[in-house]
């Protein structure tokens, strides 16, 4: 394992120190591991808090700022944060209009956020959680842990953040986050595993001729292993899986997301395939992201997320945003 770190045990706090040094627009509490917008809570604005394991950067800390999150709670690498962090963040961003928790659907994230919400409610803060579960690789069933939350988290954070910035109330902000989740689906493919710093060895072994299909974002193996294939075929596998659940026609917001170790030239090559696939099925990609937005350390691979836009969602997507990793309009 070769990593640009000082020590596996301090990588999260070291990175937080770097985030703080690079972005004066953030107030980073490295000791308690909470990333806040500088300047304190916005009175009357719904606060948005998200969080999850580290190793998915820029998610979530890179999305803290005007028009998106008010706070992010990074856990250890691939480990959901603890309720203390979320409670601290919730209190810090509460401007009196309540706080939305954007939670990726993993048992750990859900349980820890749930505990934090109870504690916050005890302190008189209205909290509404929205659970993101967009990953079609996993069966959605009452009897299982359900679908994972992946790429749609970025969309929900952006769009709900824009609505909150406009002054909408907690119920409306939560509703739009839920709507984004319902209109979005994702599928991921790994070309290589990744190595958790504290574990020191790759999370799985993969031959040079194989890929993992239906991966999540925690370095776990996928649902199935398949022979390596050209970008066009891998794009089709992902979009077939998405399309089986959600028609990919109409106006679409599409993200081709790198898992951390895949260069941009490959992501653009893949985006070309995705856009051809979608066009052939009557879809129009009117908005897109191509790059590393929700990653698995240095894993090579990609995920595709498709969101069926409405006019209102498109308007909120276009609204100004000013965060380290997503910025336009100001």
């Amino acid at each position, binding site marked *: 394992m070769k990593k640009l770190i000082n020590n596996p045990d301090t990588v999260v706090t070291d990175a937080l120190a770097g985030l703080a040094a690079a972005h004066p627009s953030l107030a980073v509490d490295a000791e308690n591991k909470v990333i806040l917008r500088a300047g304190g809570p916005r009175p009357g604005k719904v606060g948005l808090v998200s969080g999850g394991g580290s190793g998915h950067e820029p998610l979530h800390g890179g999305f803290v700022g005007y028009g998106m999150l008010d706070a992010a709670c990074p856990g250890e690498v691939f*480990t959901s944060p*603890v*309720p203390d962090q979320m409670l601290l963040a919730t209190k810090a961003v509460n401007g009196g209009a309540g706080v939305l928790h954007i939670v990726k659907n993993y048992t750990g994230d859900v349980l820890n956020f749930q505990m934090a919400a109870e504690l916050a409610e005890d302190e008189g803060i209205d909290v509404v959680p929205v659970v993101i579960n967009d990953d079609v690789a996993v069966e959605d069933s009452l*009897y299982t842990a359900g679908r994972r939350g992946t790429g749609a988290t970025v969309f929900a954070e952006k769009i709900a953040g824009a609505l909150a910035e406009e002054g909408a109330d907690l119920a409306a902000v939560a509703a739009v986050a839920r709507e984004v989740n319902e209109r979005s689906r994702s599928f991921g493919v790994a070309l290589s595993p990744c190595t958790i710093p504290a*574990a020191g060895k790759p999370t799985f072994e993969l031959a040079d001729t194989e890929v993992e299909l239906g991966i999540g974002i*925690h*370095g*776990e193996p996928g649902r199935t292993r398949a022979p390596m294939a050209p970008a066009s075929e891998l794009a089709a596998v992902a979009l077939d899986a998405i399309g089986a659940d959600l028609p990919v026609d109409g106006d679409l917001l599409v993200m081709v997301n790198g898992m951390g170790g895949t260069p941009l030239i490959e992501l653009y090559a893949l985006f070309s395939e995705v856009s051809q696939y979608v066009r052939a099925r009557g879809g129009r990609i009117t908005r897109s992201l191509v790059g590393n937005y929700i990653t698995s350390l240095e894993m090579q691979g990609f995920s595709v997320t498709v969101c069926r836009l409405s006019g209102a969602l498109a308007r909120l997507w276009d609204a100004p945003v000013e965060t380290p990793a997503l910025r336009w309009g100001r």
Partner: protein
Amino acid sequence: MDAEVFRAWIVSSARTIEASRDHLTQLDAAIGDADHGINLARGFAAVLGAQEFGKASSPGAVLTVTGSTLISKVGGASGPLYGVAFRRAGKALGDDADPGLHALSAALDAALAGVQQLGAAREGDKTMVDALAPATRAFSKAVAEGASRDGALAALAEAAEAGAAATISMQALKGRASYLGPRSVGHEDPGAASTALILAALRDAARAAS
């Protein structure tokens, strides 16, 4: 069994978890995200370092502070689940200075109930419940049949160990391993494995104290 025995249990759990850190992490790498050993080791180390842990004067207080610290320090799925388990057990013991076997049995039942209420896993879902549930059953059965403390705790630990081993052939329906579908079969559940270790530590701590 007084507070010192319970404290010794937690200390020895911390030691066995630390010693099995890489093993548990490797189990989690196979069907999860390769952090279970790291998570628990961090959590138990924090418990031993907590001021209130050293000062806790009743068995119930020892377990409650253990649970609260795990909640605050572990994260992941296992943090809240183990945290709630220890807290519920501690609450069930109340401030009884020297709980007997029936009280301990009730506390273990409360721990299991807490885990299932929070995590909604049933037996057979390939989680820590598959170690904890048979273990509590074996313990209360042994107690009902008039077994000695050491005998009942041996039954507890043995059932947990067997339950953990039985997860190997299960397909996961809860937790991260469920994402693997049929590929989760053939691997021991890391949380069930750590539960077996922790309950074996209880058996050993009690035995050492007697």
